[in-house]
């Protein structure tokens, strides 16, 4: 007996992923883009946990990869925010359309 069918969870995580994608494509602030990417990674994690619980496979198989994704999200946040700091120190802005040093 499940609390909620699998397809509803998948629809939820698809909508959460698309919400994060919208933020990543429309935010001007680099920190906002990183936050949207965290939302997208979380949607993928919900998918993994739902499949691990409800499909006929060993449940560790899905949950181990959730741990890997969480670690990768932590590295993304650390490196990304360090790059944001470095850009802010050099350019005095973190709005992505104002950082045009490599364009001409």
């Amino acid at each position, binding site marked *: 007996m499940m609390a909620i069918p699998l397809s509803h969870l998948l629809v939820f995580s698809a*909508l959460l992923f698309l919400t994060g994608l919208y933020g990543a494509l429309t935010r*001007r602030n680099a920190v*906002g883009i990183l936050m949207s990417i965290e939302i997208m990674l979380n949607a993928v994690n919900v998918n993994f946990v739902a499949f691990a619980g409800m499909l006929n496979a060993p449940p560790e198989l899905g949950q181990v990869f959730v741990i890997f994704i*969480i670690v990768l999200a932590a590295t993304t946040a650390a490196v990304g925010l360090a790059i944001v700091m470095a850009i802010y120190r050099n350019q005095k802005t973190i709005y992505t359309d104002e950082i045009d040093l490599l364009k001409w």
Partner: protein
Amino acid sequence: MTTFGPLAAISCYAALLGILTVAILTVTVRNLFHAAIFLAFTLLGVSIIYFFLRAEFLAGIQILLYVGAIMTLVIFAIMLTSRIGDPQVPQSNRQRIPVFILIAISAFFLIGAILKASWKTISTLQTTNAVELGKALMGEFVFPFEVISLVLLIALIGAIVVARSDP
């Protein structure tokens, strides 16, 4: 295995709707600090979904790592860099309408595909615990585990090198 009554189903759907609402607020609200607070609530809500799916260890990790560590980093970066009090600066670029159309089309096809597919689900919810996860990490997945440890170490050293002020 535990069974869920109708009350659990209702609260689960309420949690799903609440998470989606807070996530939409996160990507659309103007003040970036408010967006960070909404992001914290989104991550907390995802950990509630993990509790509903009986993945308690992952829920604990989610709260510790995301809500604890990553949110601290994000709020730190916002405080250090952005001009939050300035309402004149637009917070989104000019791609809003085309991106929204793209997202709507993707959502239509994705949800259609998900609802059409026949998932071979099993009747009872499979659960695991931290002991089983640890055995899997040290046994079957030991190579990706070592690789991910190396990636984490290098990323932390790289973050310190990139973020420090020049000597």
